[in-house]
């Protein structure tokens, strides 16, 4: 077993493409999953029976089934019924929907930690439910959910490796291809693990900074 990094030189472009794909799929899914998670959390707490029910079904279904199955369905299942989306789109949608379920739970927890008097006070000063959520409850809740959200985003980046099974061209896919061609299995996967750290460590750091910053502004 040798750790001669130069043997990977020939595959530079594969790693660059893989890194960019992982990064962009993660960023896209980060934005989408945050949007999905917020909407689902709000409707689960809306006290409108039907919306509550939809939110619960969403969370329980997507949180409790494997991401691999969801992504495989979007990549292979949808085309078989005539809806053709690219591997990248299938992967990003799968990641967003799956992570969205976890984020919804984190945000719901945050909203519920805001004292109930806040909502009562907002409503009694004439705000609608949506206005109260938008201007009073959510800004406070977001501060509380920064740490759990950070965890979800880090998981999201790592979970994006699921793109490899649908030939999504991400970092993990590049690693599979390069290792099977060079037989440099240890070297390739360790190198790729480091590339994942390049994305996840700054994310961790950023979340910690944001948490401290918000703590000071309260």
């Amino acid at each position, binding site marked *: 077993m040798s750790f001669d990094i130069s043997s990977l030189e020939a595959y530079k472009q594969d790693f660059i493409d893989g890194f960019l794909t992982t990064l962009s799929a993660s960023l896209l899914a980060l934005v989408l999953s945050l949007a999905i998670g917020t909407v689902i959390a709000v409707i689960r707490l809306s006290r409108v029976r039907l919306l509550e029910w939809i939110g619960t079904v969403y969370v329980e279904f997507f949180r409790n089934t494997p991401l691999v199955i969801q992504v495989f369905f979007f990549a292979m299942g949808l085309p078989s019924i005539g809806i*053709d989306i690219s*591997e990248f789109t299938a992967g990003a949608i799968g990641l967003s929907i799956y992570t969205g379920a976890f984020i919804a739970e984190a945000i719901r927890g945050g909203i519920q930690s805001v004292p109930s008097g806040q909502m009562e006070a907002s409503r009694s000063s004439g705000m609608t439910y949506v206005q109260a959520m938008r201007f009073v409850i959510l800004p406070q809740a977001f501060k509380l959910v920064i740490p759990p959200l950070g965890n979800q985003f880090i998981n999201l980046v790592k979970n994006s490796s699921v793109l490899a099974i649908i030939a999504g061209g991400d970092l993990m896919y590049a690693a*599979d291809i390069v290792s099977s061609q060079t037989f440099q299995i240890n070297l390739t996967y360790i190198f790729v693990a480091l590339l994942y750290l390049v994305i996840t460590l700054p994310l961790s750091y950023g979340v910690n900074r944001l948490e401290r910053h918000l703590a000071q502004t309260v």
Partner: protein
Amino acid sequence: MFMNMKRWLAIAIIPVLAFSLAACGTDDAAKNSSVDAIKKRGKLVAGVKYDTNLFGFKDPADGQVKGFEIDLMKELAKRMLGDEKKLELKEVTSKTRIPLLNNGDVDILAATMTISEERKKEIDFSHVYFMAGQSLLVKKESGINGVKDLKGKVVMGAKGSTSVQNIKNVEPGIKIKEYENYADAFTALKNGKGDALTTDDSILMGMEQQAPGQVKLVGGHFTQEPYGFGLAKGNKELTDYVNKFLEDIQKDGTYDKLYKKWFKKDPPKNIPKDAVNKVLKK
């Protein structure tokens, strides 16, 4: 006191039982694969595949293992031992087949194995019994008729296969997508995720029969993948016996009959007996 002794006895007996079971296993195994030894044992142990449609495939409908290679092994057992029921099948994969043969767990391998120079260092091969070659599977209406039509197209394969490398060499400027296994790649082809699927035509033929009317094989062979039966290194007696068997069934028409049964066409003429795989230049 009595209970205690019984317990100790049980503890002592279990390893003995396990050991004797293991010993039975080695008795059964084909440690000595000379023709006489196989005749004396009264059964031929063949390593075959269970997942390669048309060659060795476990039919989910009835649990029976069927295919061209299975029929060849049955015929060999019939001629050697007088009864095709004296054949014992053992499932092998591409990864396990050579170790199983070298351990003496099987007498012979009939497992879509390409004769190559590297493998010849490990084991011996019979004469060629099937000439496969890398080919293309495309959707019926794709308009692709061969490698020359692939420029700018998406070609799919399995991760780690040599087929993908071969096709890159034959026709640069192809976009490649590699899947975990051929089943996934085939699903992707049917769903239009790429334009062509490439590997040995023997594997592709099985897929073609699974989706009749949807996909077709095109492009002929651009590599040669001659399949031979694998035999233990230096077991010249059994190798000669198997080669003689191949000659016999080719002469008396049994080979043609079995080939037609599985591949629905006549076998190609004049397959070189001692071919080794090679990649053809464009």
